[in-house]
């Protein structure tokens, strides 16, 4: 099942997140600073990017209008980062879902990544908004987990 992760990492495809949110995003990512999990719950920017993608899917958001290069800052490249099997599966499914079965780009890694970028671009504000809550009782980890739990509940309810 590593088909899609291998497909996506055969060539370097840029992953992007909204450039106007990069600073905020980086505060939530441990790789760029010495912070605790509670303060920076995401280990890599990729992890945040994936969470934003998942959030967008959960909220059934339309991908942000592309090209992502217009509004997004490169966070990494598919050749520079390890995309897990499940993530690869998710991106492929997300691209199929958003592009449709007949779109000829559904098996195009570039298209898949672009869909991912656009979904991340759509989900990022949601995440950041939630993470930006000023409730000091909760750490960024708490907020992230709460958001994740909430979204999950909604999707489960929706599925049911």
């Amino acid at each position, binding site marked *: 099942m590593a088909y899609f992760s291998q497909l996506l990492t055969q060539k370097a495809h840029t992953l992007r997140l909204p450039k106007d949110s990069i600073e905020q995003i980086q505060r939530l990512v441990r790789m760029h600073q010495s912070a*605790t999990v509670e303060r920076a719950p995401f280990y890599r920017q990729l992890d945040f990017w994936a969470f934003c993608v998942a959030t967008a899917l959960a909220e059934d958001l339309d991908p942000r209008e592309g090209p992502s290069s217009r509004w997004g800052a490169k966070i990494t490249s598919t050749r520079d980062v390890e995309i897990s099997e499940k993530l690869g599966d998710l991106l492929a499914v997300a691209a199929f879902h958003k592009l449709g079965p007949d779109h000829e780009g559904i098996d195009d890694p570039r298209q898949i990544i672009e869909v991912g970028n656009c979904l991340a671009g759509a989900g990022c504000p949601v995440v950041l908004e939630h993470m930006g809550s000023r409730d000091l009782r909760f750490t960024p980890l708490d907020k992230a987990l709460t958001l994740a739990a909430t979204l999950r509940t909604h999707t489960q309810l929706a599925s049911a």
Partner: protein
Amino acid sequence: MLILQRIEIENFVCFDNIVVEPSSDPERPLTVIRAENGSGKTTFLRALRWGMYGDPSLPGKAASFPVHPAGWRTDTGIETGAAGIETRVAIEFTADGSSRHYADSGNSAMLYRLERTVTTKAVQASTEDDPDFRRIGERATLMFRALDGTWSHHEHGADAVIGELLPWDLRDFFVMDADEAADFVGGGSENKTISRHEVQQKTTFAISSLLGIDVFKSGHKRVESIARDFSRNATKAIGDKTLTSLDEELQETRTQRQELEAKIAQERTRQTELADRLEEVEEQLEASLRESGAHDDLQKRLSSNRVQSEDALKRHKDCAARLGGALQASELWASLAASAVNQTYAHLKPLYDQGQIPASHLPFVKGLMESGECVCGQTLLDDNEYGIKVKEQISNATDEAARAGYLAELHDAARSLRQESRDSTWNERRETDEAEFSELELKLSDLRTEKKDISIKLDAINDSNIHSIRDEQAALKQQYESCLSALGRHEDRLPDLKQQEDSLSKAITQRQRNELAAADHRACERLSRFVVEILDRAYATIEQQQVRELTERMNRLFHQMAANVSDDDFEDFLPNKATLRMISQVGVRQIEGSADKFEIFALNSRGRYMPPVQINGASRRVLALSFVLALCIESQTRAPLIADSLLNFMSGSVRRNTLRATSEHATQPILLLTGADLESPTEVETVAERAGATYTLTGQWDAIEAGSGGDVVNWTQQGQVSLLCGCGPRQYCRVCERTGQADAPGWTENPN
């Protein structure tokens, strides 16, 4: 006092077995033993001397002098058995303990018996000059008879007692060969020369011993020796260290001891102070620890808190990591993308179920092509119609197949995500982790609070205070130990100092005693020397007086014996020799240049000293006898005077006077005289008047029958034996009769 009671002679030269009991009657003290020349007079004298003194008293080489009977020699036929012949001389005498040293013992007379024996055995003579005998087992015993009549051995032995009573050096004085007695005068004889020194020595010894002058001399020597001893002791008592240096040493030691005692007291006080202070500090420490809630406990709690905190932190971190990881969990993505996943799956599943994805016919067709035969049986070749069609289908289907394959993959991915979404326990895990996380947050908070609390308490304990108290405690302990150590050292040293002080005190006391003793010794030394001076002066005085008295006595006796003397009275009258008549004064005088030496002198009518060599034999005999008698009288010496041939060379009045004087003045005169000595009636009368015992010795070798030209009538016992009988001067018996005596006027036969 010594009086002979009995003389037994057995097997001595010519005496077989004779017994003489000298007179002990003070009224008739004279004992006369008459014996012609060669009858054994001298032998009798020698027997007596040997009995008293042993071999040294014998003439010549004593070892060569045979004391055994003449019959010992083989030519006489006397038994020479293997046991030998025992010679015995026994002398019984009475003595009262007085001597030249002890004039009056105060004791009553006791009977003694001196017996000397020796055995003579034959030996093979090595040379002609060597004797053919040897004497063995000479023994002298002295017994005394106790009041109960039993005999006991004298504790001091024979030689010691005889030496005291009749000293060896005075043997000539008491047991006198008249020729030798003249040695007191000097001049010697034809057969013997004697030096003046020897004469002086004999005379001096006789005077010193009998007058007791030698007591003074020995006393002088003794006291002088004592004085020297006192002097030595005085010097030794002083020692080598002076009293001052000892005292200084004592003071120094005492000071050291006092200083040490002060130090000990000081250290003890310090020890007490330190102990008290240590106790205080320890109480303070204890109080501090108690007040602060036990610092060590808090430290332990803090330590435990740290461990727990580390553990909680780790778990918290792990939990946070898990929670953080939950955001990256594929389940979460699958859950969040459930709608998209489900829709994708819904779209693709029918295709999959229908087999449209993946395109599975293509491999079949490819397989047909490869096999070259269709399922309908048609041959499939690259260039035939069916083959070409199949190839077109294959080519057309490949693209579709790729897409179908992709969709199949997508289907699988959607299915997997969907399954994961459904099976997800993400929420449960998250909740569990979040609960744990919260718990750990709380715990960490509690631990932090606890730590803070402990720290506050620890701070409140005032660590530095406890440390400083502990530091003080440690310092005090060290000082205490140091104090104990110093105290120990001082206390160890103290007994030595005390002992040293005691020793010095004792030494000083001893020194003081020694000095007193030395002073005493010096005083004794001075006293001793004073006594020596007194002795010397007394000695000089007494000596002079006694010598003067001796001289006077001697002079009187001499003139008594020399009274009515004429030249005819001397048988050996020689013109160039002084006679009794020529001698006007005799006496004893100190030798010039030697205060304690004496000699007998004779002065002529002109008062000139007459040298002994110029005095004839008879005069020298009378002179010597007057000396002996005078000395005995002056010294109150009561002892026998045994004289052999005393009246030789005398005749007439001199003989008579001499005999009378001797019998009057000697305590126990025992005279061995010849018949010629007793020729005159006066002599016979003197003997009859003064003699308590008379004997006659008759040598059997003079028996007519013996054929040696003798005149003894009876040969009573054959052999070279001298027999003893109790005949007096004018008596004869069957033992002693000589020819003519029976018919001579005045001679009587003795029937006993």
